[in-house]
């Protein structure tokens, strides 16, 4: 905790972006500070700031050097980290359906074996967790969740898979994640959700925001197939518990 309460480091990411680094590790306290600074920047509407990208441990701030220079922006950012950030106005909580195991989660058995337990216990523990969207990145809608209990931590695969299915729910190291598009992954695939965290021609196009709370609940194959069709039509499928 203490380590992350020091002032963040300002690292140049080229001539048009600053990385504000709060920690080098995956660290919940650091992620909270990242998201707080993100809200503070949004509220302060600094001329020249064009876009921000929150991640586990740092906030990438894109800016237009024709409007503000590195030093001036850096000072403003440090000032914003010192004052209380605007509250996370009514944190949203999503309940996300997941079909665990079988074809939908081809690594569930192996995860259970590695952790010396049963697939049912893995699912029970995963469903019991309270998670937060720490960051979204890599490909559209790929949501990295913090809050995975220690029992379920598992190093990534030695050999990443070239292609994993859309909607995959997986475990990678100390994180769990919701993958939207089919693509490469080195994580352990334990289930699939019918929800689309990214879907064009739907409002909203991106379902989750960094900072949102997420819990999972199990569904069977039949429900998955039904909800998958509904999601394809543009329904959200995920349940919004609080907003």
């Amino acid at each position, binding site marked *: 905790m203490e380590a992350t309460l020091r002032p963040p480091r300002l690292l140049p990411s*080229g001539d048009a972006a600053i*990385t504000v680094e709060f920690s080098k590790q*995956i660290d919940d306290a650091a992620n909270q500070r990242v998201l707080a600074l993100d809200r503070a920047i949004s509220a302060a509407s600094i001329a020249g700031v*064009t876009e921000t990208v929150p*991640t586990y441990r740092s906030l990438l701030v894109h800016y237009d*050097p024709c409007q503000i220079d590195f030093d001036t922006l850096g000072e403003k950012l440090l000032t914003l980290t010192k004052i209380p950030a605007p509250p996370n106005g009514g944190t949203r909580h999503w309940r996300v359906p997941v079909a665990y195991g079988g074809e939908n989660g081809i690594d569930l058995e192996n995860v259970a074996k590695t952790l010396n337990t049963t697939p049912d216990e893995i699912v029970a523990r995963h469903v019991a967790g309270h998670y937060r969207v720490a960051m979204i*990145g*890599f490909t559209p809608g790929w949501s990295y969740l913090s809050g995975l209990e220690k029992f379920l931590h598992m190093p990534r695969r030695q050999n990443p898979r070239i292609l994993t299915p859309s909607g995959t729910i997986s475990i990678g190291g100390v994180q769990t994640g919701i993958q939207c*598009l089919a693509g490469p992954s080195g994580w352990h695939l334990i289930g699939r959700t019918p929800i689309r965290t990214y879907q064009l021609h739907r409002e909203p196009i*991106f379902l989750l925001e960094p900072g949102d709370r997420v819990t999972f609940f199990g569904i069977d194959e039949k429900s998955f197939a039904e909800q998958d069709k509904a999601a394809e039509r543009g329904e959200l499928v995920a349940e919004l518990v609080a907003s």
Partner: protein
Amino acid sequence: MTRLVVTSIGPASSVQDGGRHGAQRYGLTPSGAMDRLALAAANTLVGNLPFAAAVEIGPFGAAFTAREGAVRLALSGAPRNAEIAGRPVAFDTSMTIPRGETLTLGFAKGGAFSYLAIEGGITGEPMFGSLAVNARAGLGSPYQRPLQAGDELPAQAATGAPELRIELPQAASGPIRVLFGPQDDEFADDAKQLFLNSEWKISPTSDRMGYRLEGPVIKHLHGHNIVSDGTVDGSIQVPGNGAPIVLMPDRGTTGGYPKIATVISADLGRLAQITAGTVFRFKAIGMAEAQLELKKLAQLLRSLPDRLRAIDSMELNVDALHDANVAGHAVSAVDADTWYPPV
């Protein structure tokens, strides 16, 4: 309706513009033209906004046919042999393809990407303010994928405006300039010196996501896994095998390899135009100089309309124009008014 039909085209050719901005926080990469100055020059020649959508043409040849009417367009970027109905035409000029005639382009010479801007722009449905192709995310208009033979781009009928040429400054040369960071502290001083003091080549496996570099192995101090953080165009990440990759406009928005340095904005387009196998070097500069270079580029982009010249004679000295173009031109990446194009 008048349209430009793609009669033949090679890989790595797609509709691109200034890119889509504002959704990197959701994992959506900006995409956009590899060489923004060339995009802007081509657009300016036909009266379009500098970062309007145009055809980005990869290293191989291509041909385009005007259907149902004449199409006025302009070419800029990596020069090539070009002719309309057998008559040579020059890069960095506007031109008109008469109805039913074909513009034929050879291989890129001294560069990788050329830009074909159509008068009136490309008609499409923008997503996040952009028509740029991002195949992985299913984005791009009129096609959500690179162009193929047979594709049709709706075009306005040629206005008959007088043809123009554009005077671009002498191409910058010398090393590609970088700023160290954001994770240069993951590398020992001798690794950073090796990075600066070595000759590099672009690997043929490079693409719009990243330019893989061939050269010495750059070793990390503490291993190659960091916790993912945000990337920018020009981020130079070093994966476990020690072979750096420069991230390009189709990059992932976050990455988990240490980034030793970042190519300055003013040199991104020049890097994009370096062809596989060509030897080049990097040079580290400071923040003030990098931002000054960026402002100079922004100024150059603003000045493009003032650099248009009438073409006096139809009998162009094509060879002379080609020679003047062969070095390609410097740099990339800004809107004429602001660093980021309006979303």
